[in-house]
């Protein structure tokens, strides 16, 4: 939610810098207020920290034959999604990647879906 709001906020202040219009002056107070609220909100903003699924579930060896596990990492278009989507740690993501590539080669999971 905070991510979605930040660019909008930036864009607004950028517009103000360019025009510096008097008519927008009225808005400034409002914006300032909004900014404050935002600042306050950021500290209290609750975002669940994603943890590495593989580490917490104690998967020692990511097997390419375990399609059920691998399919969790390739939703919709069967593309490997970046780490930030799942919160996997770097070593685990690397293992997952290798396993997916192997499983794809052996036609266990698709390269892509239509």
């Amino acid at each position: 939610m905070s991510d979605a709001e930040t660019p909008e906020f930036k864009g607004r202040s950028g517009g103000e810098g360019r025009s510096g219009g008097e008519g927008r002056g009225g808005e400034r107070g409002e914006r300032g207020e909004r900014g404050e609220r935002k600042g306050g909100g950021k500290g209290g903003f609750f975002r669940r920290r994603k943890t590495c699924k593989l580490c917490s579930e104690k998967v020692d060896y990511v097997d390419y034959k375990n399609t059920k596990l691998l399919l969790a990492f390739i939703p919709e278009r069967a593309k490997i999604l970046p780490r930030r989507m799942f919160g996997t740690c770097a070593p685990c993501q690397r293992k997952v990647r290798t396993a997916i590539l192997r499983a794809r080669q052996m036609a266990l999971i698709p390269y892509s879906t239509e």
Partner: protein
Amino acid sequence: MSQRQYEILFIAEQTLGEAEVDTLTATVKGFIEKENGTVEKVEKWGKKRLAYPIGKNREGSYVLMLANSPGSAISEVERRMRVTDGILRFLAIRIDEEMKKADRKRTIRGKKESTRRASVREKDRAFEGGAQ
């Protein structure tokens, strides 16, 4: 020569019957044994639908093998599999190191668990001792 553990998975063409797949498996087994390797386990998955068509095959018979063989042998086994008719795809990967790593992790975790339990037990004992 040091033996390494390999996992070999291959897909046989869909036109092959079960008996033919068996002979193919025996052939591959022969390749490995010829190079001073041993086959530990053969696992037949049967006919499975492929995730995407390979050539004209929409399904294929999967056969998984666990083999112990010297590292130098596997390239020859792979070469022979490549020229064998009826094999759509194959994958030979070395798994002994991975398994060792996994085992190590497991033992470390086991130790951690036991020490934690021991410390908890000690605390319990201390508590009980205090209560008496």
